[in-house]
């Protein structure tokens, strides 16, 4: 989680310095969900994400330097600089797709789940999306089909209460996403997404079932997006959370306090993890800066297979 937090904070710095070229959506504050979900998966479990994908991509195992190089538009990036922040894909680690159009990733995850079913393995497909995607037709069509065919798919909704710039209450009368799928009798749970252990436990339970071939499942994680919808968002539509409140809510600090009190690790261990992740990000930035911009010939090479 520190790797995600530090990475994204540095991306924010690089964005303001115009070293990161394009549109950036950070997930600072939501790291607990990405970490609890992705670290329980294997490389051959396909994961899809949306426009706020850095955390999921890092947690799924993609190398930091190649993600940062992608964000800086370099040839050494995961997608050779052609995808950028909203389209991170790392097939090697099963991070199959981030899509820039809200909801667009959900039916694709259905296809991956179907493929897994047809192959007869125990792969499980996972798709992350925000509460805003639930009101899109994609979601409703996909949940119907996934339940009709009983596909091994886990839908992970990061409900941060805001669909881009508007609160959930302006989009729907249904407060909980888990209630939206009730008529389909999907096995579902709503958890505090900033409680890493709760997300870990609920997702792990669904994963074990899905490995046996059942599904779909819906995990709704109530979380908080600390930054704006995009980097540079003036954020006039909401009040910033008070610092003291955030200290209480922060998924990383909460896990640390809990882990230290349980004797799982010490304050020194935590500090060491932070130092390591900062060093890793510094190296990643160096890699990205040294990577050349892509060659123009790449365009003709990649439009068609």
């Amino acid at each position, binding site marked *: 989680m520190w790797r995600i937090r530090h990475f994204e904070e540095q991306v924010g710095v690089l964005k303001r310095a115009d070293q990161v070229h394009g549109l950036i959506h950070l997930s600072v504050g939501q790291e607990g969900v990405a970490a609890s979900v992705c670290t329980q998966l294997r490389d051959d479990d396909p994961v899809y994400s949306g426009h706020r994908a850095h955390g999921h991509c890092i947690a799924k195992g993609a190398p930091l330097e190649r993600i940062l190089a992608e964000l800086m538009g370099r040839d050494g990036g995961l997608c050779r600089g052609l995808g950028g922040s909203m389209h991170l894909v790392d*097939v090697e680690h099963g991070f199959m797709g981030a899509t820039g159009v809200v909801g*667009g990733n959900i*039916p694709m995850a*259905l296809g991956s789940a179907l*493929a*897994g079913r047809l192959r007869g393995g125990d792969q499980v*497909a996972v798709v992350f999306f925000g509460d805003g995607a639930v009101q899109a037709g994609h979601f409703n069509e996909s949940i*119907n089909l996934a339940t009709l065919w009983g596909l091994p798919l886990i839908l992970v909704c990061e409900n941060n209460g805001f669909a881009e710039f508007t609160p959930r209450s302006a989009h729907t009368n249904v407060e909980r996403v888990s209630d939206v799928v009730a008529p389909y009798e999907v096995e579902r749970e709503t958890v505090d997404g900033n409680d890493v252990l709760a997300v870990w436990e609920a997702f792990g339970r669904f994963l074990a079932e899905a490995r046996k071939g059942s599904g779909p499942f819906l995990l709704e994680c109530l979380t908080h997006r600390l930054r704006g919808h995009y980097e540079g968002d003036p954020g006039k539509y909401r009040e910033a959370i008070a610092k003291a409140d955030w200290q209480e809510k922060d998924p990383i600090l909460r896990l640390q306090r809990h882990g230290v009190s349980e004797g799982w690790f010490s304050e020194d261990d935590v500090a060491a993890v932070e130092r390591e992740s900062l060093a890793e990000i510094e190296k990643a930035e160096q890699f990205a800066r040294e990577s050349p911009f892509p060659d123009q010939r790449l365009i003709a090479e*990649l439009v068609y297979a």
Partner: protein
Amino acid sequence: MAEIPYIAAIEMAIHGEMERDDSVLYFGQNIATTENDKFLQAFGPDRVRVTPISETAEIGMAVGAALAGYRPVVELYMAEFMLVAMDQVVNEAPRFRYMTGGQVTVPLVLKAGYGFTAGWAGQHTGTIYGMFMGVPGLRVAIPSTAADAKGLMATAIRDDNPVAYFHHYLLTLIPGEVPDGEHLVPFGEAAVRREGGDVTIVALGYMVGLALEAADRLASEGIEAEVIDPRTLNPLDLKTILESVEKTGHLVLVDQATRHGSASAVIAADVADEGFSSLKAPIKQVTALDATIPYSQPMEEYLLPDVDKIVGAVQQVLGQAPVTA
């Protein structure tokens, strides 16, 4: 070689490819509605899947399955139904390979019928392939004969790119000689359906038949038209068209689409750009009017290209008819 209807040729290709390659899947609404369905019997319910009326989920699922190594064919019946799922057709399927820096391929076929101009009114009659011609990463096939219907479908299924395969509804039952066994028509190779030295007629899909009829009538007036069927719009065999125009010096394009949504407008622009010095007269297009297809039969006919309009256009570019026809 056997004479079979256009639609049977398409089915033959899908069946043949499913037999040849286990990774080919077939999804769609209302397919395999009985247990006696020949696809279901041959390939079983895992590979032949009836879907709800959920085009976005169907096509998105095809994209996901394609990313995982399958080759789905999505039966959409009406091309207009594909418009419901433009996000998947335009934003996801054709861009994925490119945006991932080439990490993946998305081999899938969107089978869509178009142009049912037989009283099917405004939402089942559109000739909309022009909308897709300029979508980078997407292939577009428009077979005009039964043989090509088979050969282009087989090629589409084997192609590693998403392919929008548009078949014309008025050709559905039109028979044609179709090669037995494996038959592949390469993408990007136009067919010269008739040779002639006076004028080049580039006709798209169903318009090929009308252009050939017009050419016969023109021949009786001593005008020899060369009729070119591009067969695929993406890739487009511009070379064959430019060579013909170099020979004839005159170009008429025939497209059932609305003028400003037509593929012919794009081809005309390409010829103007790259073959202007060959032209002895302005390019002329025969298209539908920029209007939705009306229900009433005489109104439908008023809107659409026909043999008379094609003949008139040729006479115009050859300076044998007033320009204001």
